[in-house]
């Protein structure tokens, strides 16, 4: 099974690759749209700002590749900013059009200390995962929440998580293993 991790200049690609390698997956970083179409599982990581990440995706042609992959039912996992980029739009950077793989938009967190950094429980399941974010997804496709915030959202073959499974210790490894077993 081949796992492609999108490397478009806005993600902690190395940590994602390491976490997948620890699970025995054949994971490689790529910015080639053909790899994104052909892989068994694609991971879209992301940190930083929505606007610069979207322009990074467009420069490599990965925006179109991701839309066509998800449209064809190819399993795709978005992590952190990778979830927010999958929405229709982010209010970050004065409003940034995003990939539109999921309905909804990313909004600035307004409660508590921001950035929201640390481990928090995710329901259903009750396990704790590591979060580090200033924006949050608002979407009718939410499938898990953490302190009321969208922790996961899914539509069709796209699953996005706000937390960092690659940084979430044993719980994160179990989550990634489930993703691999679905692919």
């Amino acid at each position, binding site marked *: 099974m081949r796992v492609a991790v999108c490397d478009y200049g806005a993600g902690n690609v*190395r*940590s994602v690759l390491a976490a997948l390698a620890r699970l025995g997956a054949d994971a490689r970083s790529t910015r080639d749209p053909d790899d994104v179409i052909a892989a068994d599982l694609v991971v879209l990581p992301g*940190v930083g700002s929505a606007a610069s990440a979207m322009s990074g995706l467009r420069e490599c042609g990965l925006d179109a590749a991701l839309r066509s992959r998800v449209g064809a039912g190819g399993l795709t996992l978005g992590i952190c900013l990778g979830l927010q980029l999958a929405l229709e739009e982010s209010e970050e950077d004065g409003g940034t059009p995003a990939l539109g793989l999921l309905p909804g938009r990313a909004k600035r967190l307004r409660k508590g200390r921001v950035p929201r950094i*640390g481990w928090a429980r995710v329901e259903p399941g009750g396990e704790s995962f590591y979060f580090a974010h200033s924006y949050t997804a608002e979407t009718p496709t939410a499938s898990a929440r953490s302190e009321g915030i969208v922790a996961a959202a899914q539509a069709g073959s796209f699953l996005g998580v706000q937390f960092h499974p690659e940084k979430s210790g044993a719980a994160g490894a179990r989550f990634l293993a489930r993703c691999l077993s679905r692919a």
Partner: protein
Amino acid sequence: MPLPRLIPCLDVASGRVVKGVRFQGLRDAGDPVELGAAYSDAGADELVFLDVTATVEERTLLPELVSRVADELAVPFTVGGGVRSAADGEALLRAGADRVAVNSAALERPGLIGELAALLGSQAVVVAIDASASEVYARAGTVPTGRDALTWAAEAEARGAGEILLTSIDADGTRAGYDLGLTRAVADAVSIPVIASGGAGEARHVAEALEVAQAALLASILHESPARLGALRDELRGLGVPLRDAA
């Protein structure tokens, strides 16, 4: 709010973990990758690696060491020491670090904070503040700056910092407890998370710090012993601190 975090801090010099107060009397305490992984296994919520000689030697922690750490650790880690430009920070994140910490370089050139935040996102930018009686000190706590810690913390936040790592020079090494007054004042002055640092001698001190800050940095209290971290977590749970279940 997310759960309170315990963050072991590893001082690194020439690629090895060292112990010693600041620059004084450094002794070898092991391999950063091995010790970091052992802390991760023992339930560390995060780690901080501070290269204590990087600023003097005008370089950052070696990216290849950062990459070895990233390959082994399944928890987040911050790297500090010698970050002087947004490009330095980007290289460390690219190597696998989750966040970078800046201290002296940001005091000399506060615009660095905004440059790092623009390139890496605020969540990746930690501003470390060393303070004595609420005055900020540069160069590992040796050079007074005349800046007030509360004012500097608020300015750092306004410039894009995502977190403050606050070390009390007065409490550091005393083992008599964190400087709760200073920590509370800084936490009240900003709306970003604050990591308390300096002075922990026993579990009760850590529990007190976690009442006013979002995380506690752990250094000499651990004696470079991951087993000690496990015991400390148990003690803190006994004191009612809601730590994550790391299993």
